[in-house]
């Protein structure tokens, strides 16, 4: 099993193959529908983003609230294709990894090749298990969005599968 540590460098991901299982450690950031829309609009307006995307992984999740004695509630992936329209612009800002579930649009695959990035899938519906791999969590932007706020997560051995590699190979079946 390969280990990936964030921030990702090109040499960490160029040799990854689709279907390969990886364990991610380091800092990743959560962002789903609303946070994508906000960042997209900020870039178009020339405003500064709330985080430097260079080398980072965005994790598509809207976690459950954190109970008092826990770092975070259940936190599995949401369906990635809702973020498709916003991904290319974020990849252009240096984003290196996207973590979610399910297939992506053809335009996203092209952008992944263009910007030499990677798309990783983790396990939908395993939010309680995945929460155990998150060792720290804090909101860093858009707190008014609640579960859709951007969170900085520190993860340890967070499991994922390479779904689209830097060459644009795709693990999902095309019917």
């Amino acid at each position: 099993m390969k280990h990936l540590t964030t921030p990702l460098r090109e040499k960490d991901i160029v040799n990854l193959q689709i279907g390969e299982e990886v364990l991610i450690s380091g800092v990743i950031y959560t962002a789903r529908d609303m946070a994508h829309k906000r960042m997209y609009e900020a870039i178009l307006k020339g405003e500064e983003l709330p985080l430097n995307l260079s080398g980072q992984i965005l994790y598509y999740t809207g976690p459950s609230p954190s109970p008092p004695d826990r770092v975070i509630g259940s936190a599995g992936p949401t369906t990635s294709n809702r973020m498709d329209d916003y991904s290319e612009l974020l990849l252009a800002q240096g984003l290196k990894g996207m973590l979610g579930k399910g297939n992506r649009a053809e335009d996203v695959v092209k952008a992944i090749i263009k910007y030499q990035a990677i798309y990783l899938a983790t396990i939908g519906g395993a939010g309680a298990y995945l929460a155990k791999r998150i060792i720290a969590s804090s909101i860093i932007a858009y707190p008014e969005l609640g579960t859709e706020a951007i969170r900085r997560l520190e993860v340890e051995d967070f499991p994922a599968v390479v779904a689209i590699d830097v060459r644009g190979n795709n693990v999902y079946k095309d019917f």
Partner: protein
Amino acid sequence: MRFINSQDIIEKVAAAVIKANTVLPTDVFKAIANALVYEDSLTARNIIEIILQNAHIAESEGMAICQDTGLVVVNVCLGQDVHIVGTSLETAINEGVRIAYKAGYFRNSVVNDPILRVNTNDNTPVIINYQLVSGKELSLTISPKGAGSENMGQLAMLKPLVGLKGVKDFVLEVVKKASANPCPPIIVGVGIGGNMEKAVQLAKGAVLRPINLRNELAYLADFELELLKAINELGIGPQGLGGRTTALAVNVEVFATHIASLPVAVNLSCHATRRVTIRI
């Protein structure tokens, strides 16, 4: 006439909602575990192991099985000799859900309006379906469901003479299009007949039937197994990453229909299918 106090309903609904979101139904757990018997892809096996461990963690630590604790649907079977005292049944059910989502630290996933989209912050309103039956019992089937699988359902108004072959083609088309999105291994609910609304109701009911039970009509029981085999031969596999286990079961329900109609609805449910029935 039997009297039921609405406070009793509130408390029992709240407890059932917490259970539904944290304890995977036994038939679903067993079917997932059974997939290890015939699944030979290493990634598929690892995913299934994680899903089973997830169920253990959720139950033992009272965590949500999935962070998408969804929109709650409550199917009410109300005995006609029951009289509810206190607040209305609708108010009581919504209050029970409100209490459970706060107490369970479940995510509030409901917005007030499909276009304006302001979170209601208590996961209400609940979708309630009422059925009036004979007797003195109030039974409630509570099923919180996430959007990943719900978004992938479809309805078709087929030409009647395409028969079971046409139905099968449509079901396979829906499952292929859904691919990884509904979090396979999935449960496939198929409603055939009635009209538009009835077909969808049948499919929604089918997906909630325990998956170890086959349809009582022999031709439909055979059709369920035929569909399951065809779906699992697609190779979509757990999480769409390849394997033999795309669906855990296919449940089909039928109803009378018009001479010119063959409505078919397909409702998909993820491996974290959640349901609890309570009887008061």
